[in-house]
């Protein structure tokens, strides 16, 4: 028994027009100041205006949103009493919007209490719309919420199936203004979602196709979107890839690259997509020795390893070919393939090693790894990823 949850998804050119038909009285837009300055918030407000929906803006969401920020947003929601919450932006504003919505509905909860094991009873006061302006996070289609505990420098994986958005509006025009670095970082995030959603122990028949399609789209279109941001075909296909991957991994789970990436991001502030993109090939190589099957199958399906005779999968060699192909893509889009290349100082990294290992082990995503490392192996993995050394253990 398992579940597949999804918002109603409006996608493609002019998808934002769907807001013109929105029924409601008040909408709280949860976003960040950059999107206000870029004029995207005004664009959304203009559509809401046409629908007769009054809008207020909470634009204090920072990268890796904190519990404190979410509480501020919740206070604004309690004053404004919206019947729609709109998460507009990348993963941070959309995750913050989800959390603000839950706390607006359930002010008795602490943010850290948002979990999938107990009913929340949402949708008594408002519903949620997600509108991504980057192509990678997939948060528009997932129920997961990542908040940062700033006191402990720790990312918390939260969420409940109930807090998936009611409507996701996936309009590629909103991502057209992303600079190349952000395009690369977020696009690699989508690839990691696709690969981990396909290969983790919680993958299902209902998620495999979405993850595979997303991986194919990223390999084909991410280099084009990075090289030429005005290539709207590449933009649209990457926007779709991110949502496909979000639906895929959101209904299975991510895995070890996310556990490691979350800790690196929390401690050294490496952007999320860049961090998980660095770690993914190392985690594939680690899994390849003992459990290569799913990676090998994916390697063949995305065309980076020939179909072996007899229709079998290619085993460890094929899984390693997938890891190599991902590193090639990172280089092609100008992203680092090691933690050192990402600019983290060795001494600082080594000084934080115990915390990196501890926090990665206590990140829920590690539970779905096909080969779970021991503490010593995880420490080694962090060091191999620092050096850029392919995993041989």
């Amino acid at each position, binding site marked *: *028994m*398992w*579940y597949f949850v999804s918002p109603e998804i409006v996608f493609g050119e002019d998808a934002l027009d769907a807001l013109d038909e929105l029924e409601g009285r008040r909408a709280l837009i949860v976003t960040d100041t950059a999107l206000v300055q870029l004029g995207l918030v005004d664009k959304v407000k203009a559509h809401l205006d046409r629908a007769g929906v009054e809008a207020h803006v909470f634009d204090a969401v920072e990268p890796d949103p904190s519990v404190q920020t979410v509480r501020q947003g919740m206070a604004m929601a309690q004053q404004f009493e919206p019947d729609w919450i709109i998460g507009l932006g990348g993963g941070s504003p959309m995750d913050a919007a989800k959390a603000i919505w839950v706390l607006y509905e359930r002010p008795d909860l*602490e943010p*850290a*209490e948002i*979990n*999938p*094991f*107990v009913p929340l009873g949402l949708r008594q006061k408002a519903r949620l719309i997600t509108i991504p302006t980057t192509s990678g996070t997939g948060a528009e289609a997932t129920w997961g919420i990542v908040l940062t505990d700033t006191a402990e420098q720790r990312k*918390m*994986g*939260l969420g409940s199936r109930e807090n998936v958005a009611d409507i996701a509006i996936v309009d590629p025009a909103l991502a057209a203004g992303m600079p190349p670095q952000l395009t690369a970082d977020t696009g690699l995030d989508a690839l990691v979602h696709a690969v981990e959603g396909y290969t983790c*122990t*919680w993958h299902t028949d209902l998620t495999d196709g979405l993850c595979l399609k997303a991986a194919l789209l990223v390999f084909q279109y991410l280099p084009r979107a990075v090289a030429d941001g005005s290539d709207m075909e590449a933009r649209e296909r990457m926007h779709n890839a991110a949502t496909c991957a979000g639906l895929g991994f959101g209904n299975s789970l991510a895995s070890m690259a996310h556990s490691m990436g979350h800790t690196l991001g929390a401690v050294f502030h490496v952007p999320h997509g860049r961090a998980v993109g660095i770690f993914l090939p190392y985690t594939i190589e680690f899994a390849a020795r003992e459990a290569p099957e799913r990676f090998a199958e994916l390697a063949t399906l995305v065309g980076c390893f020939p179909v072996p005779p007899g229709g079998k999968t290619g085993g460890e060699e094929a899984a390693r070919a997938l890891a190599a192909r991902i590193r090639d893509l990172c280089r092609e889009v100008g992203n680092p393939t090691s933690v050192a290349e990402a600019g983290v100082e060795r001494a600082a990294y080594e000084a934080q090693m115990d915390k990196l290992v501890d926090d990665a*082990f*206590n*990140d*829920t995503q*590690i*539970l779905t790894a096909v080969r*779970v490392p*021991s*503490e010593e192996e995880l420490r080694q993995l962090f060091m191999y990823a620092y050096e850029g050394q392919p995993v041989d253990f």
Partner: protein
Amino acid sequence: MGLKFPSDAWIKELSHQLNESEAYEKSAKDWEGDFVFIVEPDQAYDNTAYLFLGLYHGKSPDAAMVTSEDEREAEFTLRAPFSVWRRVIEGELDPIQGMMTKKMKVQGNMMKIMRYPKAAKEIVSCCALVPTDFDD
């Protein structure tokens, strides 16, 4: 010949396996909170059984089959029908997925539990090390 599940001998052997496990000790080094596992009747098992498992700082100082969920004070209870417990012990059902699908019901401070997913996984790994007889 395995140890009958549920039984006093079975929960004591799980406690022993936890105390032998370096991985569990490290992953739960700060954990404080005892459990009562409640095995509910279904078509394969007629009774309700209560298994107390003491857990403190990476060790299991105490374990026993008890007569009710209140006999020993515990911060957490984990409740499921016998057949669900069997699937978890045999590695067929991830207990986190079991809780997400409400096949297993946990009571207690979820914020605390969610900070120790690795420890939860190690407990399940130790369950697999207990030679178990399900009385087929």
